C-alpha cells in the first residue's frame, strides 16, 4: 500500500504547486502549462486503456478530434453556449466509443487497435476533404471566448487534468481496477471467475473516450479553433510517447511525461521541426530499454529504503 500513499502525496503536492504557478511565474508560462495539461489529460486517457485494461487504441486522437469538432460545430457554427456544448461533445464521444467498442471489444486480439486506427484515418481524411462541412485544413473558427484572462483558462486546465487524474485513479484503485488487471493478465481466469470481460472493457473504453473528448473540447475552447490536427495520427503518437517516457500503467507517468516533453520543446524551440522524428525514436528506445519509464525510476528511488529482504525476489518467505 506504499503506492497509494505516494499517489496521494503526489496529488497534494501537484495541486499546491499548480496553484502557486500564476502568482510566481510569468504569464507566458501559463500557456505552456495549459498545453501540457491538455496533453496530460489525453495521455491519461490512453494510459487508462493501454496500461490497465490492456487494449491499445492506436487511433485515440479520434476522440480528441471528435471533442474538438463538436465544440467547433456547436459553438463556432451554431452559436450554442460553450458550457452546454462541452456536455453535448461528451455525449458525442461516448456514443462513438460505443459504436466502435461494441463490435471490437468482443474479440480478443488486435481488432480494437486496427479499427480505431482505421476510423481515425477516415475521419482525418473527411475533415481535410469535406471543405463545406469541416472547413478543410483551415478548420472551424469563431469558437466563442469563454474567459477574458489566461489565468481563468489556466485554472480550468488545472481542473480538467486533476479531474481526469482523479477519475482514472479512482477507477483503477477500486474493485474495477483489480478486474481490469485480471483481464489484462489472464482473461481466461477472469472469465472463469464469472467476470463479464466485454462489459468491463467497455467501461474502461468509455471512460477513456470521455476523457480524451474532454481534452479535445478544452483545446478547442482555449485555442478557439478546431483543425484536422486534432484528428491526426501525430497526436495519438505524442500521447503514446508521453506515456512511454513517463511509464505505462502508472497514471503519474502520463502527467510527468507530458510536463517533461512540453517543457523540453518549449525551451528548445529549434527542435520543433524534428518533434515527431524524436518522439518516434524515443518511443522505440523506451519500449526496448526503458519499460517502466520515469515513474518507475522515481518509484524505485522513493521505495528503495523499504526494499529490504522481504521485497527481494524469492526472499523473505523462506
Amino acid at each position, binding site marked *: 500500500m506504499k503506492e497509494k500513499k505516494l499517489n496521494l502525496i503526489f496529488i497534494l503536492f501537484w495541486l499546491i504547486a499548480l496553484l502557486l504557478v500564476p502568482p510566481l511565474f510569468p504569464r507566458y508560462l501559463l500557456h505552456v502549462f495549459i498545453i501540457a495539461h491538455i496533453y496530460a489529460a489525453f495521455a491519461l486517457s490512453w494510459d487508462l486503456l*493501454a496500461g490497465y485494461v490492456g487494449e491499445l487504441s492506436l487511433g485515440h486522437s479520434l476522440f480528441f478530434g471528435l471533442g474538438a469538432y463538436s465544440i467547433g460545430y456547436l459553438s463556432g457554427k451554431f452559436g450554442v453556449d460553450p458550457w452546454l456544448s462541452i456536455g453535448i461533445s461528451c455525449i458525442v464521444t461516448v456514443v462513438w466509443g460505443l459504436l466502435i467498442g461494441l463490435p471490437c471489444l468482443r474479440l480478443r486480439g488486435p481488432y480494437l487497435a486496427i479499427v480505431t486506427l482505421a476510423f481515425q484515418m477516415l475521419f482525418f481524411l473527411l475533415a481535410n476533404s469535406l471543405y463545406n462541412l469541416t472547413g478543410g485544413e483551415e478548420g472551424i473558427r469563431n469558437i466563442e471566448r469563454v474567459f477574458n484572462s489566461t489565468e481563468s483558462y489556466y485554472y480550468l486546465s488545472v481542473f480538467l487534468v486533476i479531474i481526469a487524474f482523479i477519475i482514472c485513479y479512482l477507477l483503477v484503485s477500486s474493485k474495477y481496477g483489480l478486474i481490469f488487471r485480471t483481464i489484462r493478465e489472464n482473461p481466461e481466469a477472469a472469465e472463469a471467475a464469472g467476470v463479464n470481460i466485454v462489459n468491463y472493457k467497455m467501461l474502461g473504453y468509455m471512460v477513456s473516450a470521455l476523457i480524451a473528448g474532454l481534452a479535445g473540447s478544452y483545446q478547442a475552447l482555449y485555442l478557439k479553433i478546431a483543425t484536422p490536427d486534432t484528428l491526426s495520427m501525430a497526436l495519438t503518437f505524442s500521447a503514446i510517447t508521453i506515456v512511454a517516457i513517463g511509464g505505462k500503467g502508472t497514471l503519474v507517468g502520463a502527467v510527468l511525461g507530458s510536463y517533461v516533453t512540453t517543457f523540453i520543446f518549449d525551451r528548445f524551440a529549434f527542435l520543433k521541426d524534428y518533434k515527431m522524428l524524436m518522439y518516434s525514436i524515443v518511443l522505440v528506445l523506451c519500449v526496448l530499454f526503458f519499460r517502466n519509464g520515469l515513474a518507475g525510476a522515481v518509484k524505485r528511488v522513493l521505495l528503495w529504503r523499504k526494499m529490504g529482504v522481504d521485497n527481494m525476489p524469492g526472499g523473505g518467505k523462506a
Partner: protein
Amino acid sequence: MAFIQLVISGVLQGGLYALIALGLTLTLGVMRITDLSYGVYYTLGAYFSFFFIIKLGFNFVLAGILSVVLAFLIGLLVERLLLRRIISDELSVMILTFAFAYALEEIIVFVWGSPFRTLPPYAIGTLNIGGILLEKQRLVSFAVAVVLIVLVLLFLKKTRFGKALRMVSQQQHGAYLVGIDVQLIQRLTFAVGSFLAASAAVLLSPIYLVYPAMGWSPLLKAFGIVILGGMGSVKGTIIAAFALALIEVLSSYYINQSLSQVSFFVVLILVILIRPSGLFGNREGV
C-alpha cells in the same frame, strides 16, 4: 460493357491486394504478432525504386530487384534487433512496430522530403480488346503479382522450408519439439513478408503517387483482407483480396466515387460483427 470493364479492373486490383495481404497473413500466422510496421516496407519499396530509378538512373528491372532485396534485408535486421527482444509481449510488439513505422516515415521525410512523387510507367499505352480498355502498366503489374503469389504458394506446398513454416504456423510447440528452428523460420517469414510488401510497392508505384505516409492505407487494407479471409488462412486471404477489390471498384462506380474508402470500413465492421473469424478462418494455420 461498363460492368465487364469494372470487373476486369477490380480483378487487376485484386491481384495486387492479394500480394500485399499474403505477406501479412504469413507473418500473423507464423509469428503470432500484430505487425503494424508492415506498411512501412511498402513505403520503403516505393522509395527505394524511386531512388534507384530517378536519382541513380537504373533501369526498372534492376531497380525493382534491388528494392525488394533491400526490403528483405531490412526485415531480417528488424526482426533480429527489435522484435526478437519483446516478441512474447503482445502490447509492446504493437507499440514498437507502430513507433518503428512512424520513425521510418519521419526518416523518409528527413532524407527525401515530403512532396508527392511520381515514377515513370514501365509499360506505356492501353490495349483495346473489343471495346474494353486495359492499361498495359496495370496488366504487367498484375501478371508479375500473380507470378509472385504462385511462387510463394508453391514454395509453401513443395519445399522443406515451406513445410516447416506451415508447421510453425499450426503448432509452434510441436514444431519446436520435432527440431524445427522456430526462430529462424519466424525471422525468414518476417523478411519474406517485407519482401512481398516491397514488391507490391514496386509494382504499384508507377500507378499511384509516392509519399511518406503512403504505407498506412495498404496496412489497413491488408488487415481488413486478412480479417475478412480469416486469420491465418492463405486461401481465404486471396479470395478476400479479390472480393474487396471488386467491392471497392463497383461501389465507387455505381454509388459514389468517394465511397470506395468508406465501403471498405463498412465491410470490415460487418465482418467483425457477423463473422469475426472471417470467411475461411478457424485458426487452421497457413
